[in-house]
C-alpha cells in the first residue's frame, strides 16, 4: 500500500477534461471536509449544548446532500460511456431509487437509511423465528435475539466491516481498496468519520420515531453499561436497568428532548445511580431562583430589582467594577448621571435592573424610569468611551436608547 496520498492534481500534464474533474473533486472535497467537521463537533459539543446533537446531525446531513448534488453534477459532465458515470448512476439508484435527475434531498437520504434499517431488522426477526422453529423449544426465539440481535449501530458496523473484509481478502479487490483508502485519506476523510456519521444519524433518526424507541433504548443502555468498570457493571441490577428504562422513556417521550440530556448511569457516593440531566437542570434552575444573583441581596434571575431606596452595589463588567444606584452609575472613578439630550431638565434615573443569567452580570437589563432599556455591558461600553475621550475633568457621552438619546456626564449632568 502506498504510504503517501496520490493526488490526481499532482499529475504532470492534465487535459482540460482532467482539470474539470479535478475542479469538481476539489469541490466535493470541500463538502466532505465540512461534513467531517460537523461529525467531529459531535452531539455533545459544549458550544452547542442546547440543541447541539440535532443541529450537528442536521448540518452534516445537509452537507452530505450538498456533496451528493455536487457529485451528481460532476458525473453528469462525463461521457455517456464513462465507467465512473455508470457507477455513479448505480449509486444514485441504490440511494434514491428511481429519482435520478430529481433533487437529492436530505429526506431522500434519510428515508433510504430508515428503510434499510427496518428491512435488516425484519430479516433478523425472521431468522429468530426460524431458529425457534429449528430448536423447537419455548423461549428459543428470545434466546436467539438475546444472543445475536444487534443494535442499529452494531448492524451498520457489521455490514460495512463485512463488505470491507471480503474486499480485502479478494486478491483482485484488495489493491483497489487500498487505493480507495488512500484517495479517502488524500481528501482528508477517514472511514471511521463516515461510519461515525452514519451511527449518529441513524440513532438520532430512530430516536425521533416512537416506533423504534425500544430498539434504540437497548443500544443506549448497552452504551451506558459499557462505560462502567467491571466492578461497576456488577452493580447494574435489574432494578437499576428498570429505573434507567423508565428515565429513558420519560426523556424520549418529551417532544422537546435534548440529545445530551439522555439518562446516564453514574457512580455517586459509592452507589450506581440513574441520572436524568433534564430533571437535574430543572432542579438547579429552581434552586438558582432562590439565591442572590452576583451576591446582590434580593436579586433573582429574571425578576426586575427596583433600585429606589437601595444602597449602591458593585458588579464586575468588562473586567472592572461598576457601581449602580438609582440616580447614577460609577465607573472608572467617575459618577455618571443621566438626562434627556433634548430636554436636559429631564433627569433620568435607573428604575430597575434584571439579571438574565447567573454567569454574566454584563447581560443584566438596565431599565430607566422613562421606559427605555439596554444591557449593562452596553451602558458601560458607552461610559468607558466617555472616559477614554474625555477632555478636562468631565466625561460625557450620548447614548441612543430606543427613540430617546440620553446624555451621560460625570461630575455634573448638563444638556
Amino acid at each position, binding site marked *: 500500500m502506498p504510504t503517501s496520498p496520490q493526488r490526481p492534481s499532482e499529475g504532470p500534464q492534465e487535459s482540460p477534461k482532467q482539470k474539470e474533474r479535478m475542479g469538481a473533486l476539489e469541490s466535493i472535497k470541500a463538502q466532505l471536509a465540512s461534513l467531517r467537521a460537523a461529525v467531529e463537533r459531535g452531539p455533545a459539543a459544549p458550544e452547542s449544548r442546547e440543541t447541539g446533537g440535532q443541529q450537528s446531525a442536521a448540518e452534516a446531513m445537509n452537507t452530505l446532500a450538498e456533496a451528493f448534488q455536487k457529485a451528481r453534477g460532476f458525473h453528469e459532465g462525463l461521457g455517456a460511456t464513462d465507467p465512473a458515470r455508470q457507477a455513479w448512476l448505480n449509486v444514485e439508484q441504490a440511494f434514491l431509487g428511481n429519482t435520478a435527475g430529481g433533487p437529492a434531498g436530505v429526506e431522500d437520504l434519510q428515508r433510504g437509511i430508515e428503510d*434499510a434499517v427496518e428491512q435488516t431488522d425484519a*430479516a433478523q426477526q425472521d431468522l429468530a423465528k426460524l431458529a425457534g422453529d429449528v430448536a423447537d423449544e419455548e423461549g428459543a426465539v428470545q434466546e436467539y435475539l438475546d444472543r445475536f440481535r444487534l443494535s442499529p449501530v452494531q448492524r451498520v458496523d457489521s*455490514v460495512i466491516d463485512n463488505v470491507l473484509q471480503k*474486499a480485502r481478502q479478494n486478491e483482485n479487490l484488495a489493491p483497489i481498496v487500498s487505493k480507495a483508502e488512500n484517495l479517502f485519506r488524500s481528501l482528508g476523510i477517514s472511514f471511521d468519520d463516515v461510519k461515525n456519521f452514519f451511527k449518529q444519524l441513524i440513532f438520532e433518526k430512530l430516536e425521533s420515531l416512537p416506533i423504534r424507541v425500544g430498539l434504540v433504548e437497548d443500544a443506549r443502555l448497552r452504551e451506558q453499561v459499557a462505560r462502567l468498570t467491571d466492578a461497576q457493571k456488577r452493580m447494574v441490577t435489574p432494578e437499576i436497568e428498570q429505573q434507567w428504562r423508565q428515565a429513558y422513556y420519560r426523556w424520549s417521550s418529551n417532544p422537546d428532548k435534548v440529545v445530551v440530556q439522555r439518562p446516564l448511569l453514574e457512580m455517586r457516593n459509592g452507589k450506581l445511580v440513574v441520572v436524568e440531566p433534564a430533571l437535574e437542570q430543572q432542579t438547579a434552575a429552581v434552586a438558582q431562583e432562590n439565591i442572590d444573583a452576583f451576591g446582590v441581596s434580593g436579586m433573582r434571575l429574571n425578576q426586575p430589582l427596583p433600585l429606589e431606596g437601595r444602597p449602591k452595589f458593585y458588579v464586575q463588567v468588562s473586567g472592572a467594577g461598576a457601581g449602580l444606584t438609582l440616580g447614577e452609575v460609577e465607573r472608572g472613578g467617575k459618577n455618571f448621571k443621566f438626562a434627556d439630550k433634548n430636554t436636559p431638565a429631564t433627569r433620568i434615573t435607573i428604575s430597575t435592573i434584571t439579571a438574565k443569567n447567573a454567569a454574566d452580570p454584563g447581560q443584566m437589563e438596565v431599565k430607566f424610569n422613562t421606559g427605555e432599556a439596554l444591557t449593562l455591558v452596553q451602558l458601560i461600553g458607552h461610559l468607558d468611551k466617555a472616559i477614554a475621550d474625555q477632555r478636562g475633568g468631565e466625561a460625557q457621552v450620548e447614548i441612543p436608547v430606543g427613540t430617546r438619546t440620553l446624555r451621560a456626564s460625570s461630575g455634573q449632568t448638563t444638556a
Partner: protein
Amino acid sequence: MDTAKLTQLIAESNILTDAEREYWSQSLPKMNEAQLAKLEQILVKARQIPWTEQIQKYFSMITKSAKSAVSGAA
C-alpha cells in the same frame, strides 16, 4: 435442498455476524427441508436489502473512481 448453496449464502451474507454464521452453519444438519428453504428465502431476500446493496455499490463506485483517478494521475 442444495446445502452447498446454503453454506455459500451463509458465508456471503452481509446481515450475519461471524457468530451467526457459525450458528447457522452448525444448525444446517438439524434442519428439515422446509426450514432449509426458509433460511434460503431469508438470506436471498436480505441480499436485496437496499442498505446492503448501497454499501456494495458505494464501494464499487469508490474503487472505480479511485482506479480512474489514480491512473489519471499516473
